[in-house]
């Protein structure tokens, strides 16, 4: 097995039979989603499966940048049970914070179990279309958004005010949740146009074969 640093902070390449990415486990021994843990020279790595996380898929598909840093404050919209958010939590580390906004109490239940172990994950049971519910979050370095609702761009623009100058946002778009009949590439083109009004598009990646009809945009703030 070969383990090497990737060009992104806190993310490593693990080469076994397959090449996979991993983070360093913030809570050694803890694998809430049945993910593989690999111990190597006294460091425990958590495999980050691209089939289970859109951000991991975007990295596997070769996204140009992943400008998340140790100590960053992150706003995560649509955290669900906290699977992807738990990797973001690994990367930002003890000093960082991941504000996990999720509307559904059912999945929030699962996220709470994770947050009880990972003390930089802050659960917020709230509607991301109504940021006044979590104004206290303050300024963040990074926004991740994966809400899978029709008005996805709206959700992001409403939350843009939290983003620090020079901050980044990453948004996953599922064409099906916007329109079931239109062609995904058409939908993505329209979304891109919308996003361009508010952000600079740093990179974008379709997620096939990990996730069908999905795209991830990496955005930075317009100055």
């Amino acid at each position, binding site marked *: 097995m070969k383990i090497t640093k990737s060009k992104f902070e806190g993310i490593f390449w693990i080469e076994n039979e397959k090449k996979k990415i991993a983070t360093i486990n913030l809570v050694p021994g803890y694998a809430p989603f049945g993910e593989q843990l690999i111990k190597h020279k006294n460091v425990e790595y958590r495999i980050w499966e691209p089939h289970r996380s859109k951000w991991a898929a975007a990295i596997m598909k070769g996204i140009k940048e992943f400008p998340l840093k140790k100590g960053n404050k992150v706003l995560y919209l649509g955290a669900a049970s906290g699977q992807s958010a738990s990797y973001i939590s690994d990367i930002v580390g003890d000093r960082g*914070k991941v504000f996990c906004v999720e509307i559904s*109490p059912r999945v*929030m*239940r699962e996220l*709470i179990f994770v*947050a*009880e172990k990972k*003390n*930089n*994950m*802050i*659960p*917020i*049971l709230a509607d991301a279309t109504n940021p006044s519910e979590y104004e*206290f*979050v*303050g300024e963040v370095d990074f926004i991740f958004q994966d809400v899978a609702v029709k008005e996805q761009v709206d959700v992001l623009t409403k939350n843009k005010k939290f983003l620090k100058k020079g901050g980044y946002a990453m948004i996953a778009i599922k064409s099906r949740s916007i329109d*079931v*009949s239109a062609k995904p590439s058409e939908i993505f083109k329209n979304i891109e146009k919308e996003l361009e009004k508010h952000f600079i598009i740093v990179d974008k990646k379709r997620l096939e074969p990990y996730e069908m009809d999905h795209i991830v945009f990496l955005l930075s703030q317009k100055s």
Partner: protein
Amino acid sequence: MKRSKRRKRPKKQKFEKEPVKITIAPFGLFAFHKGKLVKKEIWKPKECAQNYFKREELIKKFKSKIAIKAKYEKNIIFGPESEKFAKKFGIKFNFQKFMIDLTKLKIKFGFSKDKLVIQASNMLDETNKMINMFYERLSEWYGFYWPEIVERVNSVEEFSKIVGKKRTEQSMGFDLEEKDLKMIGIAGEELKSLISFKEKVSNYIEKLMSEIAPNTSKIAGPLVGAKLISVAGSLKKLAEMPSSTIQVLGAEKALFRHIRKGTKPPKYGILLSHELMHKVKQTNRGKLARLLASKISIAAKIDYYSQGKEKKWEELLKDLEEKVSELK
């Protein structure tokens, strides 16, 4: 006459111009006056999340304990910054733990009984599927032995009563051994118990529905009503749905096919199981579904917004029946 001694009146407290500033933190209340802390109330870590929900009441009480008469100004501290404020007063406060507690309480008290309806309704569907599976399997199995009776029975209830029994007539079936027949009988007992379970779940749904959605229950029927709530996702969502969506609820596949490929749009979904559907001509079912959906939409709104308290189904039913009689 001696003038009564004038009693010393207590000095009237001066109304201070400088306002009292009350800082509301997630771990307590702090009153400042002229820059000085004049009163504080600090909560135990375990109480903080609970107190968050009754803070208005707590603030009122707190105010009444402040001796200074003045205007109040509120200052809310929330979020990770509150940890720094806590430190100033030598208090250990962990905002993340607080948010976990707070979220737990939100989950606990955010529960609504329509979620029970949804579970029970899905359980009923699954039970029906299991009953059908048992019925099919056992018909084959027992049919080796007594095909004539399997052919004759025409309901699963009837079948469950005879499956595994010894023949009482000449049969083309194979003469199964005792042990084979016994096993079939054991499986038959499971079928019986599934049927009785189905009965119980249905009764339970009926009761629940009359509690949380009495109007929907009367118009749609308790089981169809429960199924509508289940597919909509919640009573709230059903109440907010346009009646045209309710009409085709449960026919999502056909609807998507219509949108994508231009096939015929569905005229009804779950509503096909409504008892009135079998009383009108096939060609009138679409119209009836539309009618039902519009009444159910009203009923669900009444149920949701009155929390099951308001009962207006009589009017709705009367209106419905009149219109249905025109349809036939």
